[in-house]
């Protein structure tokens, strides 16, 4: 089958999403949405690893929520929580995104070329082979990786921008890791988080992810691959053991 185009101009999100679901159920693999403006919940709950949805415009919140398998490519900015509780697949945003990007994500990848808002990666988790990954090209705002229980967040700070210059990074983190170019001001670290220099082996381990991000957005690889990185991780195995329980 070829590609299917939908002109989403003025279309309520319910109708748009019903059409997308019907097309996916009918076996369509390439769906292109033009003139998207504020329609929410695009790609939510859809399945199928060979399905690609291209969004031309600015989608509304909770893009690709609960999605399992497909790829969603946005040519524009995304609103709040793209990749919310996403299970598998890929979200690629050629622009910036709002607050709570990759909120509670449990698998797959979210790539944001520019910047993200507050609480990126909040409550991300992982289980066995499921390990969600969020990569941000520019910077992230405060409370990055808040209450993270697993997964990986990488903030590249391309063009020399500070990856995070606000408070609460990794606040309440008890699993997973946040990786930033160079390092962040220790005053920006949240409670229970600790910043460590990245070893060469650890850097080697994330190289395929960086290369994929570079390919996706056709970026200059050199400054990204040669940069130094730091990891922000839980300060101990159970950083909040004494906060909520008394032993």
């Amino acid at each position, binding site marked *: 089958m070829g590609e299917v185009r939908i002109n989403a101009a003025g279309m309520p999100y319910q109708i748009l999403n019903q059409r997308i679901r019907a097309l996916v159920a009918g076996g369509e693999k390439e769906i292109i949405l033009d003139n998207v403006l*504020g329609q*929410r919940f695009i790609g939510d709950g859809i399945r199928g690893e060979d399905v690609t949805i291209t969004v031309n415009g600015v989608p509304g919140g909770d893009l690709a929520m609960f999605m399992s398998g497909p790829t969603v490519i946005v040519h524009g900015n995304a609103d*709040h929580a793209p990749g919310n509780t996403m299970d598998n697949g890929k979200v690629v945003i050629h622009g910036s995104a*709002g*607050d709570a990007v990759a909120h509670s994500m449990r698998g797959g990848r979210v790539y944001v070329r520019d910047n993200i*808002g507050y609480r990126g990666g909040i409550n991300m988790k992982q289980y066995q082979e499921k390990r969600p990954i969020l990569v941000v090209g520019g910077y992230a705002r405060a409370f990055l990786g808040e209450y993270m229980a697993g997964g990986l967040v990488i903030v590249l700070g391309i063009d020399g921008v500070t990856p995070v210059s*606000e408070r*609460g990074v990794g606040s309440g983190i008890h699993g997973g890791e946040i990786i930033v170019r160079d390092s962040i001001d220790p005053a920006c670290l949240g409670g229970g988080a600790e910043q460590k220099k990245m070893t060469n082996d650890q850097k080697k381990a994330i190289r395929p992810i960086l290369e994929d991000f570079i390919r996706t957005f056709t970026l200059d690889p050199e400054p990204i691959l040669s940069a130094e990185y730091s990891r922000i991780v839980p300060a101990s195995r159970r950083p909040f053991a004494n906060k909520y329980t008394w032993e």
Partner: protein
Amino acid sequence: MCGIIGVIDRGRQCMDGSRIREALASMNERGSGEGAGYVAYGIYPDYKDYYALHVFFDNIREHKVPLENLLEKWGMIVHDEQIKTYEQPGLRKIHTPWRYFFRPNPSMMPKSISPEEDIITYLVMKVNSERNGALIFSSGKNLGVFKAAGWPEDVANFYRIQDYKGYLWLAHNRYPTNTAGWWGGAHPFNLLNWSVVHNGEITSYGTNRRYIESYGYKCTMHTDTEVVAYLVDLLVRRHGLSEELAVRAFAPPFWEEIDRMPPKEQELNRAIRLAYGSALMNGPFAICVANENLLCGFTDRIKLRPLVTAECGDRLFISSEEAAIRTIDSDITNIRMPRAGEPVIGRVYS
């Protein structure tokens, strides 16, 4: 969850309400059909020197004369008329909206340094707390609030908002969570030339309310947002703070952030927190405030509600969602997300 949008044209070029209606309706999901409203500045040029009082009457026959007697006691009604409304299938008309162009008599408050404004404030507080079948929900000059319990488009069509032309608009789509939705509880909230729309909840409402009531304001709308309108009036109009400093009082830096500031900054921020501790607003919020000269947007200090801004030519836009701004102007390129607690202000050119 609520949806807000504001736009100011700094060159005072007027916009009709049709685009703002579309923008607000694009965020219908943020509301529950229990309240929507608009305020437009610059809509009454023929009566710009008089206070435009918008009133909800429960019953014209019973409640109109007592209100008019009260107004005539404190000043002069220059002109009055029913606010034109158009029946909507999705909106139940509970109240009859009326407008008065009113000139207060300053000699009635001889000891006041701003007698006109104090008379208006007194009348609004008195009428709204007595709840005698009349509610003054708009009391500024050359501006008007239009609101009701309903969806954004229904409320806009009920007032035919597209027939009004203003250089500054605020609009709000309500999702009431803590109190029931009703006409008076819809946003914007207005006092004198101040109008406020708000997404979120002010968990410090009790503290803020006690503080503001000690200055003679009365909270009567069964919802938290009205304290913001009164706090802005107190801090900016009556105490003379700049809008920037007032926002600093509402959403101040944390103490540990103040400790890291240069000494002079530390002194200023400590003074604000100590003097206006009871004006500090806790909880999640994104707020837009306007008066005849400016539009100001800000969020709580840990950014628990969304707010984005954009500029295009003379216009500054502030909204919960980028798509709403693009609904008004599709050529926008410089969308920006302000920092938590950072005031974004657009002023008309003087």
